[in-house]
């Protein structure tokens, strides 16, 4: 073991370097910075006028929605809700003509939409994103929620520097294990079931395994007193 001290010394140096690397990391973001690219930061003008570079405004890689129910396009299709036919998704007032609309809370009619992180954890109200009356449908041309401007008009209110790509985060994500998810966000569905099977499989294997070990050892211990352990059956 003559090489032990040398290895140890190298190891200590590497530890010191790695610890030093912490200092180089940017602090965890408590608020996101508004940044156009790695080297070019937004100036006050852009921030105050709302003028953004052209490439920021158009969803690029993203197709905002799975448009045709039952027809998957692309490798990783995703859409905000199950791809049913959305009758009212192009209206200026999504609730035009809906009876009793004024007497009810949003959640009474849209229970599924109240289960996202923003509503449950961050305590946002629906209107902080969807705005006042009339609530425009998602795909209405002038809707702030329209995917071509959602990032700037909605998300950027709170998430500085939000890009079109960022805004393709699915706010009202479907329950990840549901058939709705399989239809509208297959990758989420697959990941969910993969992890669930892994969890259940691991526990289903190791809990009985541990339990049997415990039981068997109890018996071994008893016999051991009389005889040697290795030959007990």
């Amino acid at each position, binding site marked *: *073991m003559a090489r032990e001290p040398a290895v140890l010394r*190298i*190891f200590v140096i*590497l*530890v010191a370097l*790695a610890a030093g690397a*912490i200092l180089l*990391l940017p602090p*965890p*973001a*408590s608020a*996101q*910075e508004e*940044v156009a690219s790695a080297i070019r930061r937004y100036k006050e003008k852009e921030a105050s006028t709302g003028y953004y570079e052209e490439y920021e405004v158009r969803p690029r*890689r*993203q197709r905002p929605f799975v448009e045709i129910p039952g027809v998957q396009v692309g490798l*990783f299709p*995703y859409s905000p809700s199950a791809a049913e036919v959305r009758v009212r998704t192009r209206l200026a007032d999504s609730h035009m003509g809906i009876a009793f609309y004024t007497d009810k809370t949003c959640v009474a009619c849209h229970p599924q939409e109240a*289960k*996202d*992180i923003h509503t*449950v*954890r961050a305590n946002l109200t629906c209107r902080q994103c969807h705005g006042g009356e009339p609530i425009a449908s998602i795909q209405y041309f002038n809707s702030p929620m329209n995917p071509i401007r959602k990032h700037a008009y909605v998300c950027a209110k709170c*998430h500085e520097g*939000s*890009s079109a*790509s*960022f*805004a*393709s*985060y*699915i706010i009202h*994500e*479907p*329950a*990840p294990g549901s058939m709705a998810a399989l239809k509208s*966000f297959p990758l*989420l569905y697959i*990941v*969910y079931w993969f*992890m669930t099977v*892994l*969890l259940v499989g*691991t*526990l289903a294997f*190791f*809990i009985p395994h*541990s339990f*049997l*070990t*415990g*039981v*068997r*050892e109890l*018996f071994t*211990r008893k016999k051991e007193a009389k005889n040697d*352990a*290795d030959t*007990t*059956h």
Partner: protein
Amino acid sequence: MTPTPRIKRFSVIERLFHLSLMITFLLQTATGFSRLYITTAWGKKINAVFGGYDNSLLIHKWVGVVMMVGFVIHTVYLFTRINWRTPVKSVFGEDSLVPNIADLKHFGQRILWFFGLGSRPRFSRWTYWEKFDYWAVYWGLPLLAITGVMLMYPMVTSRFLPGWSLNIAALLHRAEAILAVTYIFIVHFFIGHLRPSSFPMNEAMFSGSVPLEEANEEKPAWVESLQNSGRLKMVSAAAPVLWYRVVYFVFGYAVLLFGVYLLINGIMYARQVGLH
């Protein structure tokens, strides 16, 4: 009182790795749960311990960074453990944590032994479940690290990946965390400390050594190969001093109880989280 002969099992560095993993893992569980369960009465309570919702996230992030650094250091350390003169033998050999065919054989023998149909498998230095323990953490940590960094810098992430990858990252982070927590707090604790042959505590990871007699019983092939290669003398170790034993008993059980407390409450309050 003659001291019982003991052999060395974990070096100081390895024990430090384990200790820092214990502490950071517990902190991550507590801060992570305090956010996951924020909608429940219990979640609010542990949240208050860490100074609120935002603060517990801040702690979670920094501890995460420390864990990532630890992971890198550990990986570097792994490479220093390989005997570079005979790399293949040392990576796939008996002393290594890399799974091999013998593990499958041992597993089969172990099942038979459970029901008294065969004799105990002759384990070498690491049993197959110890290897599983190790590799479960070894792939879980990077997974949590990658998804964690994605969520930590969502704007940067969405420049390289589409924004919906954050949905996936959040789900993976949560699922893997739950997997790790249930595995550690149920299986690892039981196999490590609570089963009859190691109760009240398996001290190897704290004292660094095991009594020769115990090793001979649990891992006969290991002791045999040490004997054959003449290394048995070299790895003999002194017994841990009493005050140190008291410290790690108290510490170990505090961690165990706290972990089980988190897990039980986590299961009890799971219905009330309110997320999909």
